[in-house]
């Protein structure tokens, strides 16, 4: 259904309102209700931003992967618009993750940045998808740009398993996962209130992400429509 049909706009509005509510509750729970960490103290509250933003970035790159694969297979414009929109949002959430990590790293590790395996691979991920966005603007032929970007979008996704496994394969400053551990329920490792804060913030980020994605996707559709109509008019 097109944007002209009110239901999509209305649904997007509801999504935005739900995101706002979840974010407000998440902020209150994360900053007021959840207890400080036994070792890191108050600064651990950055985790309620850090984890949801990297997981949202991973989801975004997964959508780039799917959209790119589908575009290379079927050559449908909508798949390319999805991949392009998701890549832009992926870059946003990866950049936020690196900024949060850097601010968290200063009081806990004593440095703003270090060439730790996970940090370096995350920075590489950001550079790959900045490259993806640049590639699209550098190639004039839209179909060629979409195809080249799709290949990069698929290859770039391979960095994510490396980021995930980096804490097991190399010696890094990052600790192995403390919430999702084999043979242990999440609440056995983390205070339930912290787990609730994390869940609410993650839901808030997800709702916000889908709100932004829907807006960015429609913008991509409109841009394509404008170009096609101008071409049809000979402009």
């Amino acid at each position, binding site marked *: 259904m097109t944007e002209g049909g009110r239901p999509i706009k209305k649904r997007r509005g509801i999504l935005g309102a739900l995101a706002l509510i979840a974010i407000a509750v998440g902020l209150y729970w994360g900053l007021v209700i959840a207890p400080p960490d036994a070792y890191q103290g*108050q600064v651990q509250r*950055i985790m309620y931003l850090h984890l949801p933003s990297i997981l949202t970035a991973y989801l975004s790159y997964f959508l780039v992967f799917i959209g790119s694969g589908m575009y290379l297979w079927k050559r449908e414009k909508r798949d390319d618009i999805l991949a392009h929109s998701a890549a832009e949002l992926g870059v946003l959430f990866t950049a936020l993750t690196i*900024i949060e990590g850097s601010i968290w790293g200063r009081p806990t590790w004593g440095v703003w940045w270090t060439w730790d395996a996970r940090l370096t691979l995350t920075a590489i991920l950001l550079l790959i998808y900045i490259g993806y966005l640049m590639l699209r603007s550098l190639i004039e032929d839209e179909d060629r740009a979409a195809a080249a970007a799709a290949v990069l979008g698929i290859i770039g996704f391979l960095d994510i398993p490396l980021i995930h496994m980096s804490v097991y394969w190399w010696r890094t400053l990052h600790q192995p996962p403390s919430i999702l551990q084999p043979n242990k329920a999440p609440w056995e490792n983390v205070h339930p209130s912290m787990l609730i804060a994390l869940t609410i913030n993650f839901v808030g980020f997800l709702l916000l992400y889908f709100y932004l994605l829907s807006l960015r996707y429609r913008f991509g559709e*409109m841009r394509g429509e*404008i170009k096609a*109509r101008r071409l049809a*008019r000979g402009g």
Partner: protein
Amino acid sequence: MGAWGFVGLAYGIVWGIILLYLISLKRRYNSAQVELDALSSVEATDCDVKK
């Protein structure tokens, strides 16, 4: 800077950047919508002239 200073810095920067992105996306979206509406009205005028 104390622990709460780092927390405030992180939350402030993150929500500030997200807000800026949302504003820029809304602007791009609205200008595309205006352009699309203008094209539609020009096309409608062309159609009327042909009739």
